[in-house]
């Protein structure tokens, strides 16, 4: 059938989830005429699973997305229900912000932003075909036979692509949350040489809050002092609702065990690989048989709905079994399920088929992000969407790609892990995946990244100026604290009152701040000097920088060493079979993955330190024979 040409864009984004939204906004904000497709515009920034943003590692990603000029942080600040800084008993590097979101408002606010962003169009429609000419993407064709041309296309199809839902023995083609799946695009991708595989994830049931007995659960409140995600905000207001904690018991496990055979997971219907950190309740009961109870959180889905999310209890068991086991749980005896738990399987690629700028190795100007790349989680998706949007815009402007290093951002760790090491399950970020955790903190994401975001034309001038101001205020105040000193007589009472030992000689305020018992606000008691008015973000930064100076310095030295190999570029047209001295296994891997730097090569499994030395010698040889 003849396709009707509709329009021409610089960049087309397929999908409007967390990856698609960031990609589209980044591209449009960088001045590219952008079109974002969604099968249903109600699915824009939809949260089909847990109603929260952030958490360990994930919270770091949100801060980084925000620092670069992305939207996720601002949007959750507008729509949060409850905010909590996790891990505060531990050090500042692993403090992680998490906020419960009002799902519907999150969607509405994001949609509003998309609607009002210059250069950005959105369109309801299913993309069924990629137009590829001479190895280069040219546009897309929709189900209604319309054609849209573009210089670059970003795929962010999430669980829509080839989506299939499993509940007990029933299985049906579906996108998330009962939305229509994208059925034809997979074939078009395969035709163009893109290999697809199946991953799986799942979500628990939603029930009505009015059917729950909260008196049998423990209330989980947010922090007294809420903290914004976005560096653009100083205040975000009060927490609005609590969450609730309760536990499974032997009865629950008995019901589940007796019905193992009815689970789609054990029945063998599901071929996709699910993530280990997000197991279904039947998986938990099966694998950790000796665990007497599993905890679950009851979390609100929004202010305009009575629906509650049962965190910790995803399942692919049939609906009657779901009802039976949920009801064994204290507080859930009379629960009324309004949406059953389900498992969902979808098409995705092997991220090792991508370059570090998230462009396909097979099709030029085709960029990929989110679950399509084998990751899991809203934040991981958004981070990739942002980078795919940025790099698509840079590429079609003929500019150098922006690749964040493992030493610069969790975003860098995430993408390097996916592209260099690949993944056998939906990939989730963890702080332990980062080598330089002490430097990659959520409190300094702006200091690490806002300049980069501004340089490529993404972060706004306002954001950049805020960053400069913060940097200057922190530096100035840090210098003042170092210069202002006290005699023992002036501070020893103060120190005694805060339960810390007195000093013998003169001491600076900075030295006092290094003590765990003393905070910056405590210092106000002895601070006679003109003390500046600092914002929350500034105070946090100041405290962390001074208190942990020694450790941070140590890590910065390690980073400098790490960068030596990262900065050595490897030519993309190199034939590794011709590099004398390289082991065959290494040469094969290098030919397949085409690392962009010697550092990246060193992280490929099967490439040994000796191979790296051979590469270094080879590069030097080549450089000299050129001269």
């Amino acid at each position, binding site marked *: 059938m003849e396709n009707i040409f509709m329009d021409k864009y610089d960049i087309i984004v397929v999908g409007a989830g967390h990856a698609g939204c960031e990609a589209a906004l980044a591209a449009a904000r960088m001045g590219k005429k952008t079109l974002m497709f969604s099968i249903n515009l109600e699915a824009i920034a939809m949260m089909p699973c847990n109603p929260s943003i952030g958490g360990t590692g994930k919270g770091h990603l949100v801060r980084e997305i925000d620092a670069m000029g992305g939207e996720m942080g601002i949007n959750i600040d507008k729509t949060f229900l409850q905010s909590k800084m996790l891990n505060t008993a531990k*050090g500042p590097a692993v403090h992680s912000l998490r906020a419960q979101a009002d799902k519907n408002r999150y969607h509405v606010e994001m949609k509003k932003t998309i609607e009002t962003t210059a250069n950005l169009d959105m369109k309801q429609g299913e993309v069924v075909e990629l137009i590829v000419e001479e190895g280069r993407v040219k546009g897309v064709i929709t189900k209604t036979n319309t054609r849209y041309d573009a210089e670059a296309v970003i795929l962010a199809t999430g669980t829509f692509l080839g989506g299939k839902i499993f509940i007990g023995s029933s299985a049906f083609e579906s996108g998330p949350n009962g939305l229509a799946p994208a059925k034809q695009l997979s074939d078009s991708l395969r035709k163009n040489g893109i290999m697809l595989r199946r991953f799986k994830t799942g979500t628990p049931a939603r029930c009505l809050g009015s059917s729950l007995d909260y008196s049998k659960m423990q209330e989980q409140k947010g922090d007294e002092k809420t903290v914004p995600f976005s560096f653009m905000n100083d205040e975000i207001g009060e927490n609005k609702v609590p969450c609730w904690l309760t536990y499974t018991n032997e009865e629950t496990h008995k019901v589940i065990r007796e019905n193992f055979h009815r689970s789609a997971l054990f029945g063998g219907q599901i071929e996709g690989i699910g993530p280990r*950190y997000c197991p279904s309740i039947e998986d*938990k009961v099966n694998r950790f048989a000796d665990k007497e*109870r599993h905890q679950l959180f009851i979390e609100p889905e929004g202010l305009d709905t009575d629906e509650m999310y049962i965190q910790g209890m995803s399942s692919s068991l049939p609906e009657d079994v779901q009802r039976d086991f949920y009801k064994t749980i204290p507080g859930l005896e009379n629960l009324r399920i309004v949406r059953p738990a389900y498992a969902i399987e979808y098409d995705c690629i092997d991220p090792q088929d991508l370059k570090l700028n998230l462009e396909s190795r097979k099709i030029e100007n085709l960029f990929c992000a989110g679950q399509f790349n084998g990751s899991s989680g809203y934040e991981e998706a958004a981070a990739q969407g942002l980078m795919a949007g940025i790099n698509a815009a840079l590429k079609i402007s003929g500019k150098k790609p922006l690749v964040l290093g493992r030493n610069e951002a969790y975003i860098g760790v995430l993408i390097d892990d996916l592209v260099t*090491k690949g993944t056998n399950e939906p990939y989730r970020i963890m*702080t*332990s995946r980062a080598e330089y955790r002490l430097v990659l903190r959520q409190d300094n994401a702006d200091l690490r990244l806002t300049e980069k975001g501004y340089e490529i034309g993404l972060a706004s001038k306002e954001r950049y100026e805020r960053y400069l101001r913060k940097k200057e205020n922190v530096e100035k105040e840090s210098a003042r604290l170092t210069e202002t000193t006290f005699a023992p007589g002036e501070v020893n009472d103060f120190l005694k009152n805060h339960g810390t030992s007195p000093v013998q000689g003169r001491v600076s305020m900075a030295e006092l701040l290094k003590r765990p018992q003393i905070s910056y606000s405590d210092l106000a008691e002895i601070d006679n000097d003109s003390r500046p008015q600092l914002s929350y973000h500034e105070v946090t930064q100041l405290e962390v920088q001074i208190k942990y100076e020694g450790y941070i310095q140590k890590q910065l030295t390690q980073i400098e060493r790490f960068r*030596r190999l990262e900065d050595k570029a490897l030519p993309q047209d190199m034939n590794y079979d011709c590099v004398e001295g390289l*082991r065959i296994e290494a040469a094969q891997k290098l030919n397949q993955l085409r690392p962009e730097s010697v550092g990246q090569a060193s992280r490929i499994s099967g490439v040994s330190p*000796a191979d790296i030395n051979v590469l270094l010698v080879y590069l030097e040889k080549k450089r000299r024979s050129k001269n």
Partner: protein
Amino acid sequence: MREDTIAAIATAAGEGGIGIVRISGENALDILKKIFEPASKSIKNRMLSYGHIINPENGKIIDEVMSVYMKGPHSYTAEDVVEIQCHGSSVSLRKILELALKNGARLAERGEFTKRAFLNGRLDLSQAEAVIDLIKAKTDRTFDVAMNQLEGIFSDRIRKIRENLVDILVNLTVNIDYPDEDIEEITYEKLEADIYSVERNIRKLLDTADTGRIIREGLRVSIVGKPNVGKSSLMNALIGQSRAIVTDIPGTTRDTIEESISIRNIPVVLTDTAGIHSTDDLIEQIGIEKSKEAFNNSDLVILMIDASSALEEEDFEIIRHTGDRRVIVLLNKQDKGSEVHKDEIHIKIPGAVVIESSVTQGDGISRLEDEIENMVYGGQVSQGENLLVTNVRHKNLLEEGKKCLEDALEMVRIREPLEFIEIDVNRCYEAMGEIIGETATSDIIDKVFERFCLGK
């Protein structure tokens, strides 16, 4: 390009009167300044300077040396290079190298100086292949090594240590990355006990580094006794060929003579010492000093006594010198008479093995070899199973691992946040992995999910 500083022995093992320790990298001069005391007050670029290598920890003199500092790029590697020329004995070289490593250098990999020289533009293209060969040789060798049985025991120990470290890391990781889960919180008390226990195991392995050295460099045996008691003859008998000068004039052997031999497959470094006696002869005096030094460094002393005449004051003096060292006494020259009885020796040196011999006739030699073998494998000198740490690189990595755990323990004691402690424990885990060539990092995350029930 800034590189770390590397060091290695640059001369071939077991040869030559002079040995060279080479240090290359930006800290080369700093390291030299820490361990070298020049006779003239300053160290000048590209000028040989005479002085002593001193252990900065205790001020002890290690050796008398010539050293030269060559500022980059005018050096072999085009980096700052220091070369220390010392006496060629492996003991001296090893000690100087260890000092350099303790004071900030890393042990160079095979071919690494050459590699740096090439990468920094000092070698021409034709030499690039040679560099690759060196790197390749290293890889091939690593595969051979696994065949060795002792290495097998050693790797098992390291694997065990790594398993224990993984347990700690898994607990740290799950506590850091899953604060909201229903899992046991790690306590500082448990952390301290766990880290301490691993640190102790590393220390135990390091303690074997010395016995391991016996396998690598040989058991250090010195032969002592008054002049003309037959020391050189014994040495010749053990070597099986005449090398030391043998005469009947007392004091003919004027210097220590070191010989690497194999007794029942045990590598032995045999030192024949000049007679320890007072003399006016300057050269002989130097010899005597050297004898004493060799004597002080030895693992085993063979004390020779002339059985054909009664014990003299000189014998008593030597006996006093042996202190609590392991001693085998040869009552020699049995063919000429037996004026000295075994019991006399047992009274003077309780626990000593006494052998009646006549070295020139070949009597008692095989008995002596039996005893040496017994001592090594019978657990008196060292226990076979403990001969594990045989390699400076391994020793170094173990030292590094130990240091990391000590730092971690210190942080545990002052209750620093878990993620700081994790860094040091993780570095120790990596160092242990480098010893046995296992560097995968994903195994910790795998174990986290294997052991803990996590997730929504």
